[in-house]
């Protein structure tokens, strides 16, 4: 990561969490036949047992809207309290305006900035970083990561390594100015386009991923993002209670965790149930962790993600008593 000044956001808090997973469940047996592989192979190369899939007619906006409502309710605010809406997604329902516009319309929250950050996998973290920078001026920011990956996957044994990984879903949170129960102490993001062609999607085409290159880069960048974050804050992995990574692949999480000497018990995992939900995964993980009592007063957590661009980043959050 660069040495440029970061966004040390000491006075930003996350006040509400929500997520939405579609009801359709796709297990490995169903995909095994489609991609000409064994179900056990899917589990061994990914750690994924099931993933969720939208129903016919269900859109990324539906998932984003439901996750947004859950986050607003959790924060105890209404759409009229919002100062901005930022959506991270690599799978918008149309070219423009984006998912954010549809969410704004459904929430009946006119007159505030609403925009998409069009990035696969790392869009949720980039949206969170953008919100932390905006909220001091605009007030509470609704952050959403939403994806319908099932709509952009090729269905052919030739691309089995990609086709088995992904699921649909949305996560959301509300970012507000000032410290609180879940304070965002620091968030830093970065991009490097050297390997941008390793993960892309052209107009009207399926997603293309050079898995080997993506994994090599993700492994390196996630490690450096987390170790740099901890180093800047004078912390060691043992000082952190929970690591919330983009839920890309269990083997990658194990590799990164092992290299950083993180206790495996501290690495949050839900990809076994949801697969890789791209830009939604980090926010879904954070919402589930909060609901499971893993972000309680006195705890510290690290978020980290990697994705298209290539983009990556990490955040430090600390939990304390209060709202």
């Amino acid at each position, binding site marked *: 990561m660069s040495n440029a000044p970061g966004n040390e956001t000491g006075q930003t808090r996350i006040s509400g969490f929500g997520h939405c997973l579609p009801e359709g469940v796709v297990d490995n047996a169903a995909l095994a036949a489609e991609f000409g592989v064994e179900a056990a192979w899917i589990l061994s190369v990914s750690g994924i047992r099931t993933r969720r899939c939208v129903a016919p007619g269900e859109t990324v906006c539906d998932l984003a809207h439901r996750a947004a409502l859950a986050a607003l309710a959790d924060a105890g605010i209404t759409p009229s309290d919002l100062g901005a809406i930022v959506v991270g997604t690599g799978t918008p329902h149309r070219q423009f305006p984006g998912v954010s516009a549809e969410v704004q319309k459904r929430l009946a929250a006119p007159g505030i900035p609403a925009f998409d950050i069009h990035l696969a996998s790392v869009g949720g973290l980039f949206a969170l970083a953008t919100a932390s920078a905006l909220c001091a001026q605009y007030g509470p920011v609704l952050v959403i990561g939403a994806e319908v990956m099932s709509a952009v996957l090729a269905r052919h044994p030739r691309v089995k390594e990609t086709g088995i990984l992904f699921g649909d879903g949305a996560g959301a949170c509300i970012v507000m100015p000032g410290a609180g129960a879940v304070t965002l102490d620091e968030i830093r993001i970065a991009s490097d386009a050297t390997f941008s062609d390793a993960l892309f999607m052209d107009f009207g085409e399926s997603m293309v991923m050079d898995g*080997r*290159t993506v*994994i*090599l*880069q993700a492994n390196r*960048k996630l490690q450096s993002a987390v170790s740099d974050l901890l180093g800047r804050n004078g912390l060691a992995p043992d000082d952190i209670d929970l690591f919330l990574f983009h839920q890309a692949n269990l*083997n990658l999480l194990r590799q990164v965790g092992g290299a950083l000497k993180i206790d495996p018990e501290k690495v949050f995992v839900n990809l076994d149930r949801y697969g890789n939900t791209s830009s939604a995964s980090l926010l879904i993980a954070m919402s589930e962790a909060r609901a499971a009592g893993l972000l309680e007063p006195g705890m510290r957590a690290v978020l980290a993600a990697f994705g298209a661009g290539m983009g990556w980043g990490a955040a430090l959050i600390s939990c304390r008593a209060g709202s």
Partner: protein
Amino acid sequence: MSTVEKVRIALEAVARAPVPAEDDASLFDAGVIDSFGLMEFIGELERQFGVKVPDEELTPRKFETIAKVAAWFDARKRG
């Protein structure tokens, strides 16, 4: 010990299938390493050679065969 021998030692530590006798055989096609095996292979190489492979050099093509890997480390030594 030659560079190729050191590469083979690193490869044996992470191999998922018998390491081919030919230095120019594709390690991916032979099933010796997959995407995650490649990650581990590079880690082993870095330990074996005491050199960190820069992020911008991390492309699967450079690590596809024993000969290519050895050539990369030899060039690094010369450069």
